[in-house]
């Protein structure tokens, strides 16, 4: 990654130039190219789960699309770093849309940035395919005719993890919540499920964001004697709290840790010894089918041995579907029209299989509950998850009527 960055100043542009069929050459584009902007965290907490891996996934989708369909024009992938700050992200988005003729922005982890990009995309009538961010508001109160929320959302994670753990007997909960809107939302959604399923929330503690030392909060969680400690935080905060929980013998003491926003890359950073037993929800895992394993293999060869996260896989799937829709439409000029077409067409790609997109912009697919393996159970690199339950697509996401999206009549 480093090497590549040094080689290419400014945003990297990789052109996948394919010869088009004669009939479609006159298709109407904003500028004769489809320009895909991958915007995510290139250097911070979320760089491993999105970062250059997502750029690779987007390029891979373009390549596979061109192999299968014969592209009819130039397709370019550019990327930028939003540093997890809404002001930087929206600055880049405006520049991309206004000056650099980017047609679609993909990925964008960090909910605050995603909400900002969503609004700008709508204003400029472009397309926003979110894979990295969790905010379920994107398909709720903030839903837009220019957005598709692809991979997961906080509702799906909270519900998946919350309901499965209560079913397994985790009746009493204590929350360790990052004190910001996103943490509060995670906590609220999970607590609702837990209570609905007959569980009980014994207490919660809100820690400053970001925090380094969680010992005090963990001790409070330990003192509550709750069966499950829900970690309503993200990134480095989650990693540090899991690490310190292991130091204080919380899992050994019989309490279960539930990560409400954990990615496979976090498990990798923690190591199985520390992370074992952690339960959370994933929308995609590499070791579930031959196609996924093949993709993971190729991905890891190009990304310093890292395996793809669900966010990166989601970028692949989203870009693929976008290209299909533009192809069918013969134009990328009108963002809302492209999204409409995407919603109309059933989705089908090698990683996520068959699926649909709802009127509110929510992409629908199965999700699974996973538990991190013990070190002795792991057979190879990145063999981290045991899939303990699959939540069918129909139950995995928030019911259409509950989101409060204005597009749903």
């Amino acid at each position, binding site marked *: 990654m*480093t090497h590549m960055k040094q080689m290419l100043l400014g945003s990297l542009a990789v052109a996948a130039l394919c010869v088009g069929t004669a009939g479609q050459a006159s298709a109407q584009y904003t500028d004769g190219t489809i320009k895909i902007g991958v915007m995510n965290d290139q*250097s*911070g*907490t*979320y*760089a*491993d789960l999105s970062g250059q891996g997502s750029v690779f996934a987007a390029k891979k989708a373009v390549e596979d699309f061109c192999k299968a369909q014969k592209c009819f024009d130039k397709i370019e992938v550019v990327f930028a770093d939003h540093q997890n700050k809404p002001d930087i992200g929206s600055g880049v988005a405006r520049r991309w849309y206004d000056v650099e003729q980017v047609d679609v922005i993909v990925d964008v982890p960090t909910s605050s940035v995603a909400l900002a990009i969503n609004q700008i995309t709508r204003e400029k009538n472009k397309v926003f395919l979110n894979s990295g961010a969790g905010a379920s508001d994107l398909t709720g109160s903030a839903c837009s005719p220019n957005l598709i929320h692809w991979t997961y959302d906080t509702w799906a994670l909270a519900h998946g993890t919350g309901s499965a753990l209560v079913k397994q007997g985790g009746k009493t909960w204590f929350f360790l919540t990052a*004190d910001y809107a996103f943490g509060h939302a995670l906590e609220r959604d999970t607590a609702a499920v837990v209570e609905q399923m007959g569980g009980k929330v014994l207490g919660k*503690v*809100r*820690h*400053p964001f*970001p*925090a*380094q*030392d969680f*010992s*005090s*909060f963990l*001790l*409070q969680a*330990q*003192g509550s004697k709750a069966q499950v400690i829900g970690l309503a935080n993200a*990134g*480095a905060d989650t*990693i*540090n709290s899991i*690490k*310190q929980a292991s*130091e*204080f*013998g919380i899992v050994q*003491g019989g309490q279960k840790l539930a990560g409400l926003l954990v990615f496979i*890359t976090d498990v990798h*950073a*923690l*190591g199985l*010894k*520390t992370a074992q037993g952690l339960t959370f929800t994933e929308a995609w895992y590499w070791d579930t089918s031959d196609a996924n394993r093949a993709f993971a293999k190729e991905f890891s060869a190009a990304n310093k041995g890292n395996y793809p996260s669900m966010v990166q896989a989601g970028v692949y799937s989203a870009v693929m579907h976008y290209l299909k829709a533009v192809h069918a439409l013969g134009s990328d000029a009108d963002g809302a029209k492209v999204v409409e077409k995407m919603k109309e067409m059933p989705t089908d790609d090698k990683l996520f299989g068959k699926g649909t997109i709802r009127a509110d912009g929510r992409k629908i697919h199965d999700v699974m509950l996973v538990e991190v393996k013990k070190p002795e159970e792991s057979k190879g690199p990145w063999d981290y998850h045991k899939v303990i339950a699959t939540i069918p697509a129909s139950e995995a996401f928030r019911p259409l009527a509950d989101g409060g999206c204005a597009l749903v009549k």
Partner: protein
Amino acid sequence: MFELLGVPPQALMGQLLLGLINGAFYALLSLGLAVIFGLMNVINFTHGAQYMMGAFVAWMLLQYAGIPYWGALVLVPVIVGATGVVIERLLISRLYHLDHLYGLLLTFGLALIIEGLFRQQYGSSGLPYSNPIPGGQNLGFMFLPWYRGWVVGFSLAVCLVTWFTIERTKLGAYLRAATERPDLVQAFGINVPRMITLTYGVGVGLAALAGVLAAPIYTVNPTMGANLIIVVFAVVVIGGMGSILGSIVTGFGLGIVEGLTKVFWPEASATVIFVIMAIVLMVRPQGLFGTPR
């Protein structure tokens, strides 16, 4: 059994102990800053970055040279201290004749460079460093990991040794004299610039030592120093800038105050130190242990 504001006494004991442990980090870091400020009049904004370097060098020693934690505990302060010596010789020494605001700005710039370079090289999702003394002891009111116990004991020892060296030994007396009247001390045949350079090296070494101690507890992360430095500044200001004893006592004390805040108003725990700092600056600007200048 009585409860204090709804918190059972056992829990409170546990929180006090944890606060003391966090205080150990504040004490070590603010001690280094106080040594540098007290003896050199330089506000070392690079301190947080040097703490981060300490953790990183420990990680590198393990990763590339197979040197375990205990070796790192000795080697890291020396290595990072040496970089401090270079920085002092090449850069900081050029600013002694100027207002100390320039020292602050220079070291602020250095902190940005160091943090940026580490982020560029290692990303900022953090690197794991395993705990050298796993396990712990149930104290009845809480489970105390052995490692945390070690941190508190060791840093207390380091603080006391440093304080003793500066306040009670001949070397310390020279140092203090060199700050007051460098010309006079120079006239007695003591190489003052070299002494000042070494002082900076020692201060930086203390920061690096805190970094090594932190590595097994927190993930080794390029941003670990950036947020801490501001808090540690506050600790030094509250203790009295340049007061060695002040920085130690305040470091541990504020750790405890912060620990209690985490129980009663956890959201405010990151800010309570600044509130105290503002109050102290208003009421007793020289700090709790400082002498008015």
